[in-house]
């Protein structure tokens, strides 16, 4: 008998503080696996955002820094420009990246900063108690859209991957999901590819992961997979939105 799957080295054995069925733990594992497989752990600096994963740094055996809400791409810019040989990973949720940090992510992408952004999109604010996010769906209830998101008041969900793909500088932008084994595998492949491209100095890489938040969606973890498939995935199509050298027109 041989172990074919277990905890990657860069992830320590501290139990996660996340809710049952939360997607964060899955993606943390994929990031750690990728760092280990690509032998990048001793060059890696992980940026933890503000959100449920504010304490992502509890779990990674790398250098870690916590950033103000939304500012991680600017912090990453400073880190990478100061230490070009480091591997910088900005791990952010939908409030951090698409609300507070919208300017920072667009401009880091526009400048083509050579680091990797992992964007966890679960269409709601977790840590602060289930408020509406920029990616919340039309009709979706939340603690600040109790009658369901009405586009008349609150506009439409923002498609960050598509938006960033209009820029010439990014090297690789893909949206994946965590709903089944095929997509879990694609997510891991995307995260690993993004880090590999960073290590090769090829430019700005961005992986948007559609993830579950059973607690704030108000469903059981097993039902949250259904929710993800029937509600989130139709709004946010999966796929590669850019995979080209900076400056290339696609």
């Amino acid at each position, binding site marked *: 008998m041989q172990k074919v799957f277990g905890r990657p080295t860069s992830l320590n054995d501290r139990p996660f503080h996340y809710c049952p069925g939360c997607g964060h733990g899955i993606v943390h594992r994929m990031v750690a696996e990728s760092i280990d497989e690509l032998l990048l752990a001793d060059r890696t600096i992980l940026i933890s955002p503000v959100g449920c994963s504010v304490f992502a740094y509890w779990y990674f055996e790398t250098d870690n*820094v916590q950033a103000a809400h939304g500012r991680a791409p600017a912090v990453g*810019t400073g880190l990478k420009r100061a230490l070009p040989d480091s591997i910088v990973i900005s791990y952010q949720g939908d409030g951090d990246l698409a609300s507070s940090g919208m300017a920072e992510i667009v401009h880091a992408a526009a400048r083509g900063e050579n680091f990797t952004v992992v964007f966890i999109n679960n269409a709601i604010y977790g840590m602060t108690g289930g408020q509406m996010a920029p990616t919340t769906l039309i009709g979706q209830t939340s603690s600040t859209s109790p009658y369901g998101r009405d586009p008349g008041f609150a506009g439409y969900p923002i498609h960050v991957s598509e938006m960033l793909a209009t820029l010439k500088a990014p090297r690789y932008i893909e949206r994946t999901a965590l709903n089944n084994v095929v997509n879990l595998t694609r997510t891991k492949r995307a995260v690993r590819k993004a880090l590999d491209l960073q290590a090769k100095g090829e430019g700005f890489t961005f992986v948007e992961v559609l993830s579950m938040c059973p607690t704030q969606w108000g469903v059981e973890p097993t039902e949250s997979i259904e929710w993800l498939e029937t509600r989130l995935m139709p709004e946010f199509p999966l796929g590669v939105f850019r995979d080209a050298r900076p400056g290339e027109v696609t």
Partner: protein
Amino acid sequence: MKVLMKGNEAIGEAAIRAGCTLYFGYPITPQNEIPEYMSRRLPTIPGGAYIQAETEVAAINMVYGAACTGRRAFTSSSSPGVSLMMEGLSYLAGAELPCLVVNMMRGGPGLGNINPEQADYFQAVKGGGHGSYRLIVLAPWSVQEMADLTVLGLDLADKYRNPVMLVAEGNLGQMMEPVEFQDSYPQPYDKSGWSLTGAKGRKGHLITSIYLEADDMERYIHKLYAKYAEIEQTEVRFEEFQTDDADVIIVAYGIVSRVSRIVVETLREQGVKAGLIRPITLWPFPKDVIRRRAAHARFFLTCEMSMGQMVEDVMLSVNGLCPVHFYGRSGGNVPSPAEIIAEIRTHL
């Protein structure tokens, strides 16, 4: 060898010679010469990086990231842009990261104007950002001092792992005066014990400012304040002119202190025993020297280009030993020697 240089550019050149080759900034009058100068100089220096950030919010966070690596980084702005940096400064102080922020002060509140003012004293010294922290605040009065305090600021930031702010009125940045630099300035502080450089052969380092448990947060804040107490003991800087026997003592900084020195000389010629205390560190504030002089002075006149901000700290330092009066101008008006003399005479 002295060179004639604009104040803003002298700051940039001094920073570079002090090994600070990372600059992240944003255009705002009256400090645009700083990013422009850095944009010319830094690309020619190995390891140098210049970014015009999208906003001052981004700029201060880029400084935060760069500072994590142990490399020196600075940014500059003017009053409204510095307001945008307050969140970042609170985080820098909370995470114990060194950096230098330069504020070329202009008229406020709001959009104000592009003339010089000194109305950001509260923001700098009392904390424009949230929470329990302090910034070391340096106030030059000449182009030479703009260069020297840039170097000192970078040193103090490293020494105490704290952000340092250099405040100067917009006109000091525009003035051209002779300035002398050393070829280079040493960086004496070792940051390998905490900096983020990739955890090769060591445990990972963590830079953060969140402490959820009340006792943990209180302990941490006490640690910061022990640091601030040490700074108050050892880093006060000021200059005195003819205060030994002074009846009337002016307290002023920056450009107003240059005007005030003329006032002191003029009044002395007219038989009035006037003196001047010029704070160079606005925090830590030179309260001891002010209190000592308050024992024999008849009154103090605090002179500022604002409606009165530093005057409150002068009052706290004098602590009732004698009257503390105030004279100020706003909107960019620089008080003239005649105005200040007239004000002093109303109290004689």
